């Protein structure tokens, strides 16, 4: 640890702690503030990078992740179809290390918010002045099983799951059925499941399996993102091949027999069952602990945060970004869970932490955005754009309900085309580099 306070000195000062804590840290040669970042996906990598880039030696940043590199969900549907290799979506941490980020391989077992320490599976305890949690999602098991994602993959966390689904898609023969689910909102990457249905159907078409079918069981009443592009794709491009079933609440999943029961019908013994379960914030403590290790969770299982700092109410030095957090927003205009948005939130969070260390208030002139490209066929794509500005937010009938990130613009591509398909790779390259390089 770079901290110069030893334990005895700390105890001597402990009585003064409440007075000291309100002073800015940046006076003279203060030791660097210790920031621990949990989770090395788009949110965690970006916050670590920008803390070092903007904060320099004022911050000692440790990034904790169990894996040696991050495998991006972005573009992973194209790994499922064989269009891209895993290398294209595997993102290492060496550039972050060159920026002075300490990358610590490990799994978080528990967080002691009182003493400000993170305990790892190997027994290491990391002390923090600020903690940024970006752990992503966990899956909520179906009401009834037996469910085993190693038999029926979700492929909603990229890696071995992606390759397992690729293998199962490759085993499809004519007249076989590929059944997939769309989780109840909010879930990671709103357009992602519909995109997957399209590229899977495109794959089957190109393999001349023209009597194979893709069944999309949506837990929601309608398509959750890019409704124009996906309605056109389901009704025209893949007419007769993709069957879209809304309001399909999953009741039971049997991975062994590849069968699923829903409120909109049952499908049994299908060739590939791509059950993507409902989601919640990933645990940061033992599953037996209160709130799975979180100080607070909302009814949907995500962590409510302050939109200016991504701090948890009552825990001003604990921040949550990315898919795990719930940002206050206007009704029906939720902030989407995506890698691009996690990157956006990470920069707001990094800026707020550095201002706090300087004794300043958080900036209120802040925006976040999400932009993404979705392949519709093997040569065409669509895009989705959403912008959020800090300010007043409203309930369902337009009544002011407080402050948050208000969605000021939303829209999808006027048409799907080949230029968008090429732009998709430029977009991903930019996002990968801004987060990990």
């Amino acid at each position, binding site marked *: 640890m770079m901290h110069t306070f030893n334990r005895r000195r700390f105890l001597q000062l402990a009585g003064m702690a409440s007075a000291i804590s309100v002073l*800015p840290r*940046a006076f003279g040669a203060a030791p660097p503030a210790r920031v621990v970042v949990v989770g090395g996906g788009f949110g965690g990598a970006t916050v670590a*990078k*920008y803390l070092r*880039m*903007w904060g320099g030696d*004022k911050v000692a940043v440790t990034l904790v992740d169990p894996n040696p590199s991050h495998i991006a969900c972005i573009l992973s549907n194209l790994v499922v179809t064989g269009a891209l290799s895993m290398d294209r979506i595997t993102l290492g941490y060496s550039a972050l290390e060159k920026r002075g980020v300490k990358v610590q391989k490990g799994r978080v077992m528990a967080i002691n918010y009182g003493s400000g320490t993170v305990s790892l599976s190997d027994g290491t305890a990391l002390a923090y002045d600020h903690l940024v949690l970006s752990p992503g999602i966990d899956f909520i098991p179906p009401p009834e099983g037996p469910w085993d994602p190693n038999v029926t993959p979700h492929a909603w966390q990229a890696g071995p799951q992606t390759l397992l689904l690729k293998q199962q898609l490759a085993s499809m023969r004519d007249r076989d059925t590929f059944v997939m689910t769309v989780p109840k909102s909010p879930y990671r990457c709103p357009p992602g499941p519909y995109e997957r249905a399209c590229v899977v159907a495109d794959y089957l078409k190109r393999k001349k399996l023209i009597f194979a079918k893709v069944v999309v069981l949506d837990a929601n009443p309608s398509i959750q993102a890019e409704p124009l592009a996906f309605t056109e794709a389901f009704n025209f491009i893949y007419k007769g091949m993709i069957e879209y079933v809304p309001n399909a609440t999953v009741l039971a999943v049997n991975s062994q027999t590849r069968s699923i029961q829903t409120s909109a019908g049952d499908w049994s013994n299908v060739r590939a069952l791509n059950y993507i379960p409902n989601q919640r914030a990933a645990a940061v403590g033992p599953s037996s602990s209160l709130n799975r290790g979180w100080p607070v969770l909302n009814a949907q299982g995500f962590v409510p945060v302050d939109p200016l700092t991504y701090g948890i109410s009552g825990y001003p030095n604990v921040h949550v970004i990315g898919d795990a957090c719930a940002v206050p927003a206007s009704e029906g205009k939720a902030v989407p869970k995506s890698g*691009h948005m996690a*990157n*956006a939130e990470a*920069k*707001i969070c990094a*800026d707020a932490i*550095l*201002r706090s260390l*300087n004794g*300043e208030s958080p*900036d209120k*002139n*802040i*925006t*976040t*955005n999400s*932009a993404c490209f979705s392949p519709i066929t093997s040569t065409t794509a669509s*895009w989705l*754009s*959403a*912008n*959020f*500005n800090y300010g007043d937010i409203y309930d369902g009938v337009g009544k002011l309900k407080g402050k948050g990130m208000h969605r*000021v*613009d*939303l*829209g999808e*591509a*006027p048409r799907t085309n080949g230029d968008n398909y090429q*732009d998709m790779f*430029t*977009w991903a*390259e*930019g*996002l990968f*580099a*801004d987060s990990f*390089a």
Partner: protein
Amino acid sequence: MSLKTISPRFLIPVGLALAASQGAQAAPPAGQVLASQCAQCHGTNGNGPGFDEVAGKSASELQKDLLEMKRRPVEGIMDRQARGYTDAQIKLIADYLAAHSGSGHDN
């Protein structure tokens, strides 16, 4: 944007703002966190990789381009993204990116 909406801090020359940022206590340069939201697609500080229409442009060119995209009918994704910012935010972003992109460095 009417002159009445410009707050005095927009009138601080960028060079001065950058010089001030060298001090330990200085607030971040104006526009830094707003402009960081462009980096997902245009690279850190607009220096790529990604869509490369940022680096090398002057503040006035960037501002003019963004305002034009904001007001024309939507064709490309930037026509939507530009709609997400107030004219005052666009000015701050343009000033910041003009001062920080094109250097080949990202900080």
